[in-house]
């Protein structure tokens, strides 16, 4: 008997491709939410595989907080050019200028929560009925309850207690006008799976994930990059360290780890030995025990 089974990475890949094709078949106007982080890069790579030899049939949508790592924006533009897809940008700065949202105040102010309005506005104005995201269930406890096809009401809100059951491989994307869906093709991947797959497929990722020298400040136990947006406290000191980032969010809230891992091989080995979760360095999740759930209910990624 020959071995008719898949290894776990092939099975995860196959599942994600299946989901992406279901999205394409069931929705009129889907987009991939592209942040320039490894998870959205992975989703984009899987979409390339799912529709080959046709090009990816979805535009990429980026919610631009204005507080970006310059490397991320460069990377995003390169990907768009290489794939020949459209890019939709929702700008948090514009939402602020138009008075749709107000900047948070205080020293730990970020634009993280402001993205929700910009995202929902962009979804509405572009008539998007499904936004494909790189969310994973292992990231956070509220995300552990997320469906592959996740319904959002006409206010963009998630109701975690009233979700549609998902059985077998049958996905129900039916919705009324004004409602939309979020689809999460890599729900079942862990951080380690993502790195093992990126390594196997040799997918290019922003240089920020590799160990590099950078000016940083120690804050809340992590190395926050120095940038024009960072307001320094009196006791804080800017130092240069060799660090890498495990996740990429806004430059104001993403902490780096000291690391020597400058190849995909070394990163995978390092991640395998990690003793803290990947979002542990994300101050946006640390605000309260249900910080993610609360944001997700309102329409966050």
């Amino acid at each position, binding site marked *: 008997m020959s071995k008719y089974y898949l290894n776990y990475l092939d099975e995860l890949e196959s*599942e994600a491709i299946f989901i992406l094709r279901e999205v394409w078949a069931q929705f009129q106007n889907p987009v991939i939410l592209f942040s320039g982080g490894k998870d959205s890069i992975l989703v984009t790579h899987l979409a390339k595989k799912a*529709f*080959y030899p046709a090009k990816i049939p979805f535009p990429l949508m980026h919610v631009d907080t204005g507080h970006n790592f310059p490397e991320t924006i460069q990377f995003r533009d390169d990907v768009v050019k290489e794939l020949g897809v459209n890019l939709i940008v929702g700008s948090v700065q514009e939402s602020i200028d138009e008075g749709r949202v107000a900047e948070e105040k205080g020293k730990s102010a970020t634009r993280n929560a402001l993205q929700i309005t910009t995202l929902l506005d962009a979804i509405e104005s572009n008539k998007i009925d499904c936004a494909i995201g790189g969310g994973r269930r292992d990231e956070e406890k509220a995300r552990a309850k997320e469906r592959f096809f996740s319904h959002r009401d006409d206010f963009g809100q998630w109701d975690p207690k009233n979700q549609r059951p998902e059985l077998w491989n049958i996905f129900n994307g039916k919705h009324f006008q004004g409602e939309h869906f979020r689809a999460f093709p890599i729900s079942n991947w862990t951080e380690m799976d993502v790195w093992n797959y990126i390594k196997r497929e040799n997918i290019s990722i922003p240089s920020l994930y590799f160990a590099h020298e950078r000016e940083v400040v120690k804050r809340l136990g992590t190395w926050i990059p120095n940038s024009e947006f960072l307001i320094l406290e009196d006791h804080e000191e800017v130092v240069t360290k060799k660090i890498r980032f495990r996740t990429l969010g806004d430059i104001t809230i993403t902490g780096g780890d000291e690391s020597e891992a400058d190849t995909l091989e070394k990163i995978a080995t390092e991640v395998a030995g990690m*003793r803290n979760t990947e979002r542990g360095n994300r101050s946006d999740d640390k605000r309260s025990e249900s910080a993610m759930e609360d944001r997700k209910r309102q329409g966050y990624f």
Partner: protein
Amino acid sequence: MLDNNQLLRFTTAGSVDDGKSTLIGRLLYDSKSIFEDQLAAIESTSKKKGHEGVDLALFTDGLRDEREQGITIDVAYRYFTTPKRKFIIADTPGHIQYTRNMVTGASTANVATILIDARHGVIEQTKRHAFIASLLQIPHIIVCVNKMDLVDFSEEVFNKIVAEFEEISSKMLVKDVRYIPMSALLGDNVVNRSGNMPWFQGAPMLHTLETMHISSDINKVDARFPVQTVIRPQNESHRDYRGYAGRVSSGVLRPGDEITVMPSGFTSTIKTINLFEESLEEAHAPMSVSITLEDDIDISRGDMIVRSRNKPEASQDIEVMLCWLNNTSAKPRAKYTIKHTSNDQKAMIKEVVYKIDINTLERVNDSELNMNDICKVKIRTTKPLMIDSYRENRTTGSIILVDDTTNETVAAGMIV
């Protein structure tokens, strides 16, 4: 090292008191799948709540309401990896009012774990969990006889529970049942072998999960390929390419195979099977591929490519074991959208043949379908579906019903 590793999905069903959350916490903790910041978070919560030591059960807390009420409401998914396998746990609540969540979690599982409190033995809930596992045709069951520390690790107690379970499971369709005496609280026989039960010759739970043979659970005989979408690139290099994209449900497909497209009945031969830039010599479940054919025939989403010598049944009248999932009850002779593989049709529930009393497992005469009810029904569809029985094929044997007035998924069914 991880290259030939398989993915194993298992479900846990249990209620507040039988130690399910503790078992999952123990499995993750002892297999070193819990991170330090997670541990620190639950250490502080344990302290806040006045618990002694670290309450491993807190790892499985999810939504705010669940934390506040101390129960699992929804299916939660958890992940861990050992050098041998990657695991996905579908953690489901065990109470009768959550039957639908158990059914959901069970639908994709390779293995069901059923928890029994050693002090109480087989109770109604155990029967219900075993029944759901057999209804959903989960190929393997692990019966975890937990809290052995509270019965002095007694072999006699364990043997008695095994006998009780054998008696109920002999009436159900379950193929492979294993029994493990354990104490999730103390860690006996979860990841590490227990020193307290030298009389137990079997392996601890993790080892059992790591070594269980699951490859033969997939149907390799009946080739079924539901078409999800058609790939037609509008570019120079692939002007004439027309690929049928989908995921192999069962069986094996190879270039050169003679195929029939259902329901049209057109026949052709497989030209190529592709995954991205690769051309494959064969495709089997659950691979996502695209297939090209020698002939230019009309195929679209909802069609199914099958081997010409082995076809599913095309039928408008199907008998289904249905689990009602929604708090709006079924309306008599109401019409629903039925979703079966990539095919959507309209359907009507013509008749409720019988309902199953989920506690006694007896058939009762009752035609009302309320949330969590399990019953046998006759359904009529507007156009034929290409079906296999659920027992032979989990993908082409399953359906869901969608209420067109709310768009909600209201029922899940297994074709008899």
